[in-house]
């Protein structure tokens, strides 16, 4: 048990490091560029006609404070971290005076839901089929599946979502292609509401799952075909151990551990894919919110989303890391 504690602490350290480096990058990006968001906001506010210079000065001061951009660089840095710790990103400019944290809070569950559902489906189905394909190499069906997976794998998120949108939105419009739920249904635990959530999520989940499933399939298939020649598998087959048992406990179990690591490593990319998919389908998650923020020049919103994204992904990776010893008992010893 004690070795697990060490492992937990090491992973926690990595989590903290990721958040620290990530947020620093965000800070760097916002402060190292020639654009001053305050000036930008002011210029867009004052472009239509004359403004009293004193009013502009008051606006400037207010904005500076709002954006945490007053004081020296070091003071700004501290303010930044303080606000992050309290979850205070200030009010959104585009949806004044709604706090950014509220907006993010509303959008985050949609993104998390989309991400977890499709990742779970893609990872499980992809690994399962890939494992079968690696073990039963002669099966024509699995070989065909492999070709499909190889074709799907390199396609980036946007193109995939666009293709799904075209297929199901224009060519074969059986599923809703935008929004999180029907506009005219009352939110609540009614069947109508829940079912509309489900139908609206089908296309985004399908799209996001398709993006990653190819990769899992191909990866698992190659892992399994290597494991199949490992000593312990050959020995078990030699000993006449039940084939089904070999496939599950000897082959797949050993292949899943690296795949779990792979999942942790690609979570950043999957998150990217998720928010892009949301934009294509108008799904009310962080993606659509982000684009809205950019288009309306809403500095606090974009900053908030960037920060929360980093923390969310790091947390998810941390959680996956904690699961890893369950699959691979050797990790405790290291």
């Amino acid at each position, binding site marked *: 048990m004690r070795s697990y504690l060490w492992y937990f602490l090491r992973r926690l350290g990595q989590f903290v490091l990721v958040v620290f480096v990530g947020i620093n990058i965000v800070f760097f990006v916002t402060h190292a560029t020639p654009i001053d968001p305050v000036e930008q906001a002011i210029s867009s506010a004052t472009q239509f006609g004359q403004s009293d210079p004193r009013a502009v000065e008051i606006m400037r001061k207010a904005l500076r404070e709002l954006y945490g951009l007053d004081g020296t660089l070091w003071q700004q840095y501290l303010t930044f971290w303080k606000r992050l710790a309290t979850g205070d990103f200030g009010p959104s400019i585009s949806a004044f005076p709604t706090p950014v944290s509220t907006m993010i809070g509303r959008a985050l569950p949609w993104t998390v839901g989309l991400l977890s559902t499709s990742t779970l489906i893609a990872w499980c189905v992809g690994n399962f089929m890939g494992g079968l394909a690696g073990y039963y190499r002669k099966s024509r069906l699995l070989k065909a599946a492999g070709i499909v997976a190889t074709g799907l794998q390199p396609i980036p998120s946007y193109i995939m979502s666009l293709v799904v949108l075209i297929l199901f939105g224009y060519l074969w419009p059986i599923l809703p292609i935008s929004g999180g739920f029907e506009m005219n249904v009352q939110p609540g635990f009614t069947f109508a509401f829940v079912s509309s959530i489900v139908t609206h999520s089908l296309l985004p989940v399908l799209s996001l799952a398709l993006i990653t499933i190819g990769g899992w399939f191909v990866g698992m298939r190659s892992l399994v075909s290597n494991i199949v020649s490992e000593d312990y598998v050959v020995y078990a087959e030699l000993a006449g151990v039940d084939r089904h048992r070999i496939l599950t406990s000897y082959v797949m*179990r*050993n292949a899943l551990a690296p795949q779990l690591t792979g999942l942790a490593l690609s979570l950043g990319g999957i998150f990217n894919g998720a928010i892009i998919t949301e934009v294509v389908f108008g799904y009310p998650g962080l993606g659509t919110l982000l684009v809205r923020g950019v288009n309306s020049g809403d500095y606090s919103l974009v900053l908030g989303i960037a920060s929360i994204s980093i923390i969310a992904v790091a947390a998810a990776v941390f959680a996956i890391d904690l699961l890893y010893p369950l699959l691979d008992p*050797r990790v405790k010893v290291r």
Partner: protein
Amino acid sequence: MDAALSVKNLRAYYVTDYYGVRREVRAVDDITLSVEKNEIYGIAGESSCGKSTFIKTVGAAIRPPLRVLGGSIKYSFLERDLYDLDERTLADIRWKQLSFIPQGSMNVLNPVRRIRESFQDFAFPHMRLSRSEFFDVVKQRLERLHLSPSILTAFPHELSGGMRQRVAIALATVCRPEFIIADEPTTALDVVVQKDVLALTLETQREMGSSMIFVTHDLTVHANISNRLGIMYAGRLIEEGPTGDVLRDPMHPYTQHLVASLPQIGDLTPKTALNGAPPNLAQPPSGCRFHPRCPLATDICRQTNPELITVVPGRRVACYAVSPRLKLGPLQMTG
């Protein structure tokens, strides 16, 4: 049939066809031998002489690109040739009547399963016992191999190399099979552990009365454990006989050289190496495969392969220099 295992004219090659190039590696080329009941038959030879391939073939462990091209393999507990059996019968006799003690015990146990689960996977289905009875038998076996029953809950990486090898032996013998194939089980161990494992193997075999094929390149191990010894070279069996006789009185030039290279306490003569290198089994030399390195090679050796014939009851040699002229005793090696 008296013999526990009878192999006749076995040929097994690795056949590959890759990027337009076809290759045949003649790893096992016409081998005939038999193993008696309750005997340990040792197979010796240098690396890449084909001994591992031979036991894979005899143990029904072949996979493409390895293919059996001819010959027969008959076990005493089977009515038909090994390769005439269907999958089900084959699966049935595995482990229960024919088991393996593998090389490289480091990796033969599934790293994500505990030892007791490995026992369950391998042996439990073959023994008609209840779970608790089964584990009683397992614990007994472990104790005979000087292993504490507590290792059952451990993972393989938590045990030392010697312990894992002993677990492998326990695993292979718990069903009391009639025939055991041991593939270099002591090669990866240090000498102290080696001695221990060998003694245990011998004890186990004596206790169960099983027959065994024991493969190792180490002649000193054979001296300790094998009843009869067969020497393989380049995919062929070139000498065979009771271990003591072969080691004291080797007939084939290759065997003579092997035996002469064993260090003896008090012997100060310098050892010479055989010139040349082991042959390429994809394009083996014509005739006798040893002729490029043999100081006694003559024309006939280069043309035709010598047959393995009984020169003295119980001893077979494949060499023109030794047979058929029985009057000629073992020849002295020059230099």
